């Protein structure tokens, strides 16, 4: 019984990731974390929902198969004077165990495709950031601003101050500041070997491939600092090229841009400069000139 209590408690500790709406986005893994990082973006929220469905299905399958296996092992263990059966066919049961998995797969496939197309459909971007993987650091370029591009190197072990919220192997010397509640188009490429840009809390992962420009998007709804790590083997420093993203309110972002010396380009993709997420919802994409922006 103790063991079942333990199992239940395991499930309960994995609940925070399931109750995705109430907790804030997760910056980095908790000790003994069991499940996905809690979402900071709508994309990750959808992924968590879908995974919760999958988790129920696959757990049920494993339990059923294991139960059948254990039952067969106990019930049909060798006994004296009991002759084994000799049947080797049963058309009905064979049809059932072909059809039922197909039905389960359809149940999985429908939300799976919905999620896939949701992830693919990039909403009208309000900010475009191009990121380039190098051995072994990331370069960032805010495409809508002049003079706003920089390289982000990992902080060395002795520069880390945990009380400031910095984390070893995760914090960089130049966090990428983004406004919350903004649809951000991410362009991902690499300058030498393959890398992959990843941000688990936002549900983003895209390979950085030299000679190619990959595209994805994110919208971070909860202010906070989020971390990611290079997710494609890229040589000696593969484990040492983290991604640090700081999501701040719009005004703070604008202040940061000015402080960095960035100026808005004429052909920018910033359609509105809403001061709050609510404003953005009520007043989406109005600037017709910029929708026709050929640079997109």
């Amino acid at each position, binding site marked *: 019984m103790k063991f079942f209590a333990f199992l239940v408690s395991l499930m309960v500790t994995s609940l925070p990731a399931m109750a995705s709406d109430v907790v804030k986005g997760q910056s980095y893994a908790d000790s003994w974390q069991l499940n996905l990082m809690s979402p900071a973006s709508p994309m990750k929220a959808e*992924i968590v929902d879908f995974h919760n469905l999958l988790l129920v299905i696959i757990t049920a399958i494993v339990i059923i198969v294991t139960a059948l296996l254990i039952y067969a092992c106990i019930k049909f263990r060798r006994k004296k004077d009991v002759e084994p059966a000799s049947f080797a066919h049963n058309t009905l049961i064979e049809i059932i165990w072909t059809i039922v998995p197909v039905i389960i797969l359809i149940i999985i496939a429908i939300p799976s495709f919905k999620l896939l197309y949701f992830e693919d459909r990039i909403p009208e971007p309000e900010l475009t950031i191009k990121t380039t993987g190098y051995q072994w650091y990331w370069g960032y370029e805010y495409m809508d601003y002049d003079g706003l591009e920089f390289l982000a190197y990992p902080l060395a072990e002795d520069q880390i101050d945990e009380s400031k919220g910095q984390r*070893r192997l995760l914090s960089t010397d130049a966090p990428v500041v983004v406004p919350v509640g903004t649809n951000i188009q991410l362009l991902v490429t690499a300058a030498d070997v393959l890398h992959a840009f990843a941000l688990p809390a936002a549900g983003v992962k895209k390979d950085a491939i030299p000679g190619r420009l990959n595209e994805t998007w994110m919208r971070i709804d909860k202010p906070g600092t989020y971390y990611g790590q290079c997710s494609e083997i890229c040589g000696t420093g593969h484990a040492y090229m983290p991604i640090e993203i700081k999501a701040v309110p719009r005004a703070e972002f604008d202040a940061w841009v000015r402080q960095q010396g960035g100026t808005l380009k004429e052909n920018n993709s910033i359609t509105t400069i809403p001061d709050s997420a609510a404003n953005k919802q009520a007043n989406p994409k109005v600037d017709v000139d910029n929708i026709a922006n050929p640079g997109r």
Partner: protein
Amino acid sequence: MADQQPGFFTRWFCSTNHKDIGTLYILFSIFAGILGGAFSMYMRLELQDPGVQFMTNEDGSPNGQMWNVFITAHGLIMVFFVVMPGLIGGFGNWFVPLMIGAPDMAFPRLNNISFWLLVPAFLLLCGSVFVDVGAGTGWTIYPPLSDTLGHPGMSVDMAIFALHLAGASSILGAANFITTIFNMRAPGMTLHKMPLFIWAMLVTSFLLVLAVPVLGGAITMLLTDRNFGTSFFNPEGGGDPLLFQHLFWFFGHPEVYIMILPAFGIVSHIISTFSRKPIFGYLGMAYAMVAIGFVGFIVWAHHMYTTGLSVNTLAYFTAATLIIAVPTGIKIFSWIATMWGGSIEFKTPMLWAIGFIFLFTVGGVTGVVLANAGMDVVLHDTYYVVAHFHYVLSLGAVFILFAGWYYWIGKMTGRMYPEFLGKVHFWMTFIGVNLTFFPQHFLGLAGMPRRYIDYPAPLLSDVMGIDNPTWWQRTEYMGRETWMQFHAWMTGETYESAITWGYHGWNFISSMGAYLAGGSVILFIVIVFWTLFFGRKASDNYWNVPKNIMTLEWTVSSPPPFHQFDIQPKVK
């Protein structure tokens, strides 16, 4: 007819006898397995605690290249020099002719060169570790990292040649199996009466012949990119790194079925033998393997979900990949149905086979999760993937390597293994590998990327307040930490740990499991020698396989004569 008795050199170095070549393959596989396993022990030792304790440069800084060389060597050795030689070269060579009632393989000398190509291949791969900086590309050898840009020295060239030779060995062996199975079956053994292991070997051989040449082409293009100025995969010359990934996985995905299909065949025989029942749904089982083999060729891009393929392509590969669950499910349920109503005896091979069914189910359902392109975005290249493929390979194919060894060792050597030690070996391995790989699901879900020498978590030297704690101090501290955490979960209390974040906890458990599994390998070596020197004599049909389910290897002596079936057997 008097049995032929060649001298030692002739017998083992110039062998054209399928049983002797099979034995050589098995010995080779065990040797390579110990080496590949030792690599993984060292890697788990390094990952046990955050920070880099062992794989350092002379100045104490982390040696990331050494780590990458280790993961590459571990992967390539386990795939090409352990599982394939063990299941295909070893058990395939031994039991395909015996089970179809043939005196030998169709091309005995081809068989000889198939094995002896593996040896230089293995030496080249091992040598590449010591040349220049070693090949630290991962077993997928993706350019540009594997191109001169990432690895200017000769090591990757050596690894490429190793794969060329291992590939040639596989192709020749596969051609031999196809010819043997199609032409040398005993009279009366139609395709639909072949034992399932023969079906498995037939499908595997076709996959090898169709898939491995594609790898050969890809790595040859990589070789010319590296050395002769072509730019197949070099974007600066108009090439495309993604082309290599397509070619690699067009080989690589069938390759995973090449590793698991022979295991499927062996499981069927073991389950049937120890349940005293004919295999349930024989035709469904055979054609499920054919279906898995076929679909295996049209799902390759599910390894490339994050590379920026178009969304419709992703949707297709998601659907195609999910479909594989259907024939796989048929196999799992048919094995259970074979046990149903049987008279099950839990000898060591049966334990491994039942363990296999459970573990393959776990690995299979995580495969269903990963099949979804939308879901894979957060799991791609994390430890979730590592857990998934170790559940189906390290705990699937390797379990059946052991199952087959225990099942047939009496037949192969004429001596029985010690039953009790065999069972201890099973339980040690079963507990060890589950402790190793189950927590890696949690690590992957929480986002820990794979192929990392170090992971984000507070350093133990900071937590414990000691400079450079020893391995014993660290293990003791984390052992207590783990106990407190689990105690808190069991009792529902809260435990305030000094380690508040990061991937440390499950990595520690994973390493502990790995040490247990590593210990079980030492026990296995003891069992091997015990069997060879002290094993009791095995009778011809030592499992008492009943007549209605008997395959032909149980009709010959243990060990079989140098040339078997002087009188051709007939199948009703």
